[in-house]
Every structure is written in C-alpha cells, then in structure tokens.
C-alpha cells in the first residue's frame, strides 16, 4: 500500500515538474505538432472503431432492456447519453492507454536504458523539455481529440445498430437525443475526456522516463503504464462523475 502511495506521489511531483518546465522554457512548436500528428495518426482508426462499436454495443444492450417496456423510441437518447457521459470515455481511454500509453512509455524507456536521456543532459539540454513536454502536450491534445472522435463515431454506431438490430429508424433515433442528451451531459463527457487524457499523458511519460534495467525494465514500464493508467482512469472517472454531479446541482440548482 505504501508503495502505491509513494508511486502516486512521484507521479504527481513529475506532473508538476513538467508544468514547471512548460512555464519556464519555450517549446519547439514543430516538435509538438510532429508529436500530435504522430499520436493522432497512429490511433485514429482504432479509436474510431472502438467508439463505433461501443455505441453499437450500448444500443444492443438498451434495446434488450427497453423493448419489453415499449420505450424503444427513447433508445437514441438513452444510449447516446450513457455512452457520452460514462461508457464511451472510459472504454476509449482504456484503448488509448494500451496504444498511445504503451508506445510512449516504451519509446522513452528505450531512450532511458540506451542512455540517450543522459546524453541529452550531458549535451546541455533538459530531457523534460526536449522529450517529455512535447509528448505530454501532444498526448493530451491528441487523446482529447481522439476521445471526441470516438464519442462521435459511437453515435454513428448506435444509429446503425438502432436501424439494423432494433428497428428504430435514423430519424427516430436522433429525435430523442437532444431531449435526453443535455449540454451538461456533453460537458461532463468532455471534461472526463480531458482528465483521462492528462492521466494517460502523465503516467506514460513518467513510467518511460524513470525506466531502469534494460529490455526487461522497458517491458515492466509498459505493463505498469497500462495497469496504472487503467486503474487511475477508473478512479478519475468516479471523482469526475461526483464532481460533475455536485457542480451541476450547484449551478442548475437541481
């Protein structure tokens, strides 16, 4: 237990170290855009597919529950609301943890064990500024965008399965979305996407940057990234859901 708390503390310190470097030093925009492009292109297809099927799965599940009550007319609104607020961000973030997170921690970990990070320090540069910061910003921006893309495609997945599996027409599916999917739902979903993106970026860069022990160490860093990111995302999901609920009650007075 103490090990987990100590690890969490180190990740938080690392996060503030990244922010400190960001505040003090300039960052190469070319390097950052290269990273954003790389991360987005690497994961756009798989994230899109994951989003599409999450929407499809939610539609199937809701159909099975709702058809007995004759409430299939609300299928579009309920399936979309649940996907955007909860299931979509969570599952797509899990997939990104396996893809972007594993890749980044392996890349930085390899640079660490081949002494490239030490070499950067010896050559008068700051490895946090040169390697970690561009990747951190790129992962946050790209993951937020990819999560958004995934959620958008989840609606298409829902529409398609609504038509094919549930017999709910395209128009009918869409008709109830605005009544059930409120602006707060969308904002909650987007807020979660942002938090998950930050969690993913900080954990994978930390694990890669602090890798020790050669090839085995790189493998271990990748595993720790995947496990650590998923567990933290679930906890962050609970915290953000709670915060969103409290905030919305306070703002809307409900």
């Amino acid at each position, binding site marked *: 237990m103490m090990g987990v708390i100590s690890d969490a503390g180190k990740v938080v310190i690392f996060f503030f170290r990244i922010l400190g470097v960001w505040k003090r030093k300039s960052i190469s925009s070319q390097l950052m855009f290269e990273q954003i492009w790389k991360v987005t292109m690497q994961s756009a297809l798989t994230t899109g597919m994951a989003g599409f099927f999450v929407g499809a799965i939610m539609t199937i599940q809701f159909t099975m529950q709702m058809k007995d009550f004759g409430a299939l007319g609300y299928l579009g609104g309920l399936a979309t609301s649940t996907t955007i607020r909860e299931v979509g961000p969570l599952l797509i973030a899990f997939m990104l943890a396996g893809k972007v997170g594993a890749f980044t921690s392996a890349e930085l970990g390899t640079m660490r064990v*081949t*002494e*490239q990070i*030490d*070499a950067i*320090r*010896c*050559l*008068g*540069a700051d490895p946090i500024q040169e390697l970690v910061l561009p990747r951190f910003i790129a992962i946050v921006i790209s993951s937020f965008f990819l999560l958004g893309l995934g959620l958008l495609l989840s609606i298409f997945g829902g529409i398609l399965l609504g038509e094919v599996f549930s017999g709910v027409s395209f128009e009918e599916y869409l008709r109830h979305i605005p009544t059930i999917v409120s602006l707060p739902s969308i904002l909650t979903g987007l807020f979660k996407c942002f938090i998950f993106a930050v969690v993913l970026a900080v954990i994978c860069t930390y694990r890669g940057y602090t890798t020790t022990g050669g090839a085995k160490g790189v493998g271990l860093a990748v595993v720790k990234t995947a496990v650590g990111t998923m567990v933290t995302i679930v906890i962050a999901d609970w915290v953000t859901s709670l915060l969103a609920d409290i905030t919305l009650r306070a703002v809307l007075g409900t």
Partner: protein
Amino acid sequence: MALAAINLSEVSISFEGNTVLHNVSLNVTEGESVAIIGPSGQGKSILLKLMAGLVPPTKGKVLVRGENLFEISGARRQKLINKIGMLFQKNALFDSLTCGENIAFPLREVTELSEKEIQKISEEFLAAVGIGHAKNLYPDEISGGMQKRLGIARALALHPELIFYDDPTAGLDPITSRKIIDLILHLKSKNTSTLIAVTNDMNRAYQLADRIWMVVDQQVIDAGTVEQTKQHKDPRIRQFISGEINGPLTSMAGGE
C-alpha cells in the same frame, strides 16, 4: 600547484541499500588523462557518471572546477555542464536523428550559432573523426566503429574542457580500437582538455593515461603512472593486469 579539475571528497554511492562506492576521495588535475580500470560490476561507469553530474552521490562532495555540481543550479550549473563532454558505453546516439543532426543537436541547444554555421561545424567534426560521408545516414546505418567516432564527435562538439569516455573501445576489433584511441589522443592534444576514460583493455589504458585508477571493493585505488601501475604491489591490480584466473579478484567474485 596545478588546479583540480575534479575533486571527490569522501563520496559514497548506494542504490537500494547496495553500496557501490564508499568514502572515495580523489583529485584530477587540469589537463590530466586518467584511465579507470577494474573488474566488471564494480562501479567504474557509476564513478564516471558521478563526475559528469549524471548520478548524485549518497554522501560526500563532488567538486568540478571548484564548484559542487550537485548544489548549484540554473545558469551556473548549465555553464559547468557545458564544459563537460561524454562518450557513453553504447554511444547513446539519437537514433531518430542523422549523424549530422546528432552533432548539430548540442550546438542548437547551447550556442547562438546560425543554422549555416551549425551545419558547417557538424561537417567539420564528422570529417575530423573520419566519417564525413555519413552526414545524412542514421546511426543504425553505420558500423560500430563509425558509431563510436560519431559519439566522440558529438561529445566534443561544444569543445568541452572535461571529457569522459565510458569504455571507448568496447566491442571493437583491436585495429579499430587502436584507431579510436589514436583519434582520442589526437583530439585531446588539440583541445588540451582533461580526459577520464573507463577501459578494461590494459594496452589502451597504458596508451591513453597519465595516471591509472582501479575501482574494486567499493574503493578507488590510485595506481599512479603507467610505470607505477605495471610495478604495483597490490595483488588485485597485479591479477587484473596479468589476467590470471586465480587471485583475490576471483575469490571476491565468489570463485567464478
């Protein structure tokens, strides 16, 4: 009295409870060449990284040109770091950059030179180490000996006054090893810098060093000049030089 380039005062290093170096005190004079020898796993590379400011000591002081590398920060530390060059054991070349870009990297980071000047200096350094034709190739497209030369060129790009070489001839054939040491000595004679190199090859150590240290049993033994080292009475140094299987170093390693 000659100025101390490096001064270690009662330095100890431990990792997760394992002591690598214990109460080590040493001096390196400006312009001197020191070779560090010793059995594998005794902490030679750690000692080198300690002096280069990459690994902090658990206890004691590391003074580089009179300044404690681990107590200063900001521009003062950066200024000191810029005087240090290092060739890593496995070269640590940036595999996503070409050979030319590897040399240009520190110049872009540290100097205010124009891109044209940086390109010119990169080409000059590549030519100086004999790989001028490899400017646009990536490190994994060139041989081990060429990678070593590239590593040396990159380490020297900022004209450091203190240069650390971590096993510069590791994995190279004897002829290429000889060429690399000749190149290091040639570049040192031009730069008049202080040089500290880890090596397990005694012939290269004799060729390279004014003074030889041996890292063994958490201590660093100053074996003196090349001639003094050859005549040294310490049985551990004698065994290491002769390469005998039986001796104190073998029993220390558990009779392997």
